[in-house]
């Protein structure tokens, strides 16, 4: 009995010292409960709607509140409606001036589109419904562009952080620290292979998605590659950052999990952002995958040009600069000489050549 007690006491002592695991054990269930509770909702309660054409005002008045009309344009045409939809500004667009009224539905927002089609079917022959970008409302068409981002996130955060932290575990980081190589070159040299592998993965997954699931690629491959490259810098930066706050590969995986899980749940990849409670939705808008999904779905499904995707491009670029700079600075600190706790500083004299610092 004493031996088991000793084992239990030892295990608790180790657990208390491992704050990260302890935090995961206590905080994770609470977070999952709250996030799932508020975010896990497929039902979209209102749809951003545009009404164009000669009877736009009358039709707007007749629409139930479910259709949240944000654009009413009597002089607008079907082409204008399609542009609004391509730019992801509305989920539904009614084109009046024809009988029956044409209702265009944005199929790239799957749950909103499903709700819209269900609501429009009840109206009967007065409305002719046409689903754009994803006519059969296939889940795979919406998921594949998002999964490309998820794969990049996986490689960028988990694989990169493990690769970086391995140097610390093996003790080779201290060797790199005394070598005549700049910290920025160490970082770039270390992440370049992951960047390359992630890029190849991205191409393979995109091509397979197109071949296996018939997902369309309607936009510019260049814009898509640019968005993916910026996004990769964000997630690679996150990977480097995670490696600077982890001592072991196990810790790096735990920490990367903290970053990965919210991206899966709150980026709009599974649950639509507009269906989430506002208290949780804002977290989604802080996550890089949210913006990459906007770009990948926009380009692949809707053929959206960069101009209409400027917001996610700008947000991702800012994130890339902030995360990458922060991670680099932290990594530089790891490669710099350790500073003892004392406030006094040693003077490093110049020798025949140069001093150590």
């Amino acid at each position, binding site marked *: 009995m004493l031996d088991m007690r000793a084992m239990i006491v030892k295990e608790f002592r180790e657990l208390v010292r491992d704050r990260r695991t302890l935090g995961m054990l206590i905080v994770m269930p609470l977070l999952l409960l709250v996030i799932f509770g508020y975010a896990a909702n497929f039902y979209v309660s209102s749809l951003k709607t545009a009404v164009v054409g000669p009877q736009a005002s009358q039709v707007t008045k007749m629409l139930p509140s479910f259709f949240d009309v944000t654009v009413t344009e009597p002089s607008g045409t079907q082409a204008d409606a399609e542009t609004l939809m391509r730019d992801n500004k509305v989920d539904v667009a009614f084109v009046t001036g024809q009988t029956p009224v044409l209702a265009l539905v944005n199929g790239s927002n799957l749950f909103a589109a499903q709700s819209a089609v269900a609501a429009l079917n009840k109206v009967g022959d007065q409305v002719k419904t046409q689903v754009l970008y994803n006519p059969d409302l296939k889940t795979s068409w919406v998921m594949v562009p998002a999964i490309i981002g998820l794969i990049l996130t996986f490689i960028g955060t988990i694989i990169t952080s493990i690769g970086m932290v391995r140097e610390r575990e093996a003790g*080779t980081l201290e*060797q790199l620290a005394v*070598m005549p*190589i700049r910290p920025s070159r160490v970082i770039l040299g270390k992440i370049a292979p992951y960047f390359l592998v992630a890029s190849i993965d991205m191409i393979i997954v995109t091509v397979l998605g197109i071949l296996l699931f018939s997902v369309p690629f309607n936009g510019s491959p260049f814009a898509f590659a640019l968005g993916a490259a910026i996004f990769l810098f964000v997630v690679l930066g996150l990977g480097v950052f995670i490696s600077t706050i982890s001592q072991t590969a196990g810790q790096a995986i735990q920490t990367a999990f903290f970053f990965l899980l919210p991206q899966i749940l709150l980026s709009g990849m599974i649950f639509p952002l507009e269906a989430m409670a506002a208290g949780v939705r804002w977290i989604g808008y802080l996550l890089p995958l949210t913006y990459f999904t906007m770009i990948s779905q926009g380009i692949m499904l809707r053929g959206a040009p960069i101009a209409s995707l400027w917001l996610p491009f700008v947000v991702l670029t800012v994130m890339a600069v902030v995360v990458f700079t922060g991670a680099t600075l932290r990594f530089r600190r790891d490669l710099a000489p350790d500073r*003892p706790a004392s406030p006094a500083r*040693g*003077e490093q004299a110049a*020798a025949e050549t140069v001093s150590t610092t």
Partner: protein
Amino acid sequence: MTYSVRSATVRFGSTVALDDVTVEVPAGSVVAVVGGDGAGKSTLLRALAGELALDSGTVQTPPKQRLGYLPASSGSWAALTVTQNIDFVAGIYGLAGDELAARRAELLDRAALTAAAGRLAAQLSGGMRRKLGFVMAIVHRPALLILDEPTTGIDPVSRIDLWRLVSEAAASGTAVLMSTTYLDEAERAAHLVVLDSGRVLVQGPYDRVRASFAGVITQAARPVRADWAWRRGRVLHEYWPDATPSDPPAGATTVAPDLEDIVIALSLARRNMVPS
């Protein structure tokens, strides 16, 4: 050229890891740092390697391009082969092409690693891994070579190989600073530094360290004072700091101290005389 740390003090919180330590490493000679666990050996070496900033004191080293360092950890990349490890480090120091190929072949031969050139570092024995680490530390012909316990945990034959490599490096003009826990091999160094609790107990050439040793060491089956005694083989040695060889403790057999006796005796003297 002589490289050095002077009046170096390093504190980790309330622990003084180095306390006013001055050590010089002249070109072409081997300086061995000895001492027990926590004596400050690695801290001293890391300070000289520029891996650790001092609280006070000065460090004189060559630029990183002319510095070679073998840390106490493995010193090599486990998932790379012996050749790939050497090539990686050589690449950072700007060695390539025929020059690298010749240097690599020369070092692999001298370290008896030629047959293992294609093996992963993870698959090498401890001794082979340390020799590889040594080769990586000298591949660029450094002016100052810092080796943190290069021979710890390796077999006697590999220790001989490594010492031959160290001696050759010194003979070619490199200043070598190495730490070791093996006092027998430290005696081979041109200059000894004995550290204890971050302070230099004694330093100098081995003969001078032995000549300057004060007090008497005796051997007996049972010590008079347990605090001043330690086991050497089947007998116990005991240190009498105030005795002299001409006036030894009555009834005891005196012994000529070797370096191990001197280091232990001085460490005991410090611990027994300095209130903790």
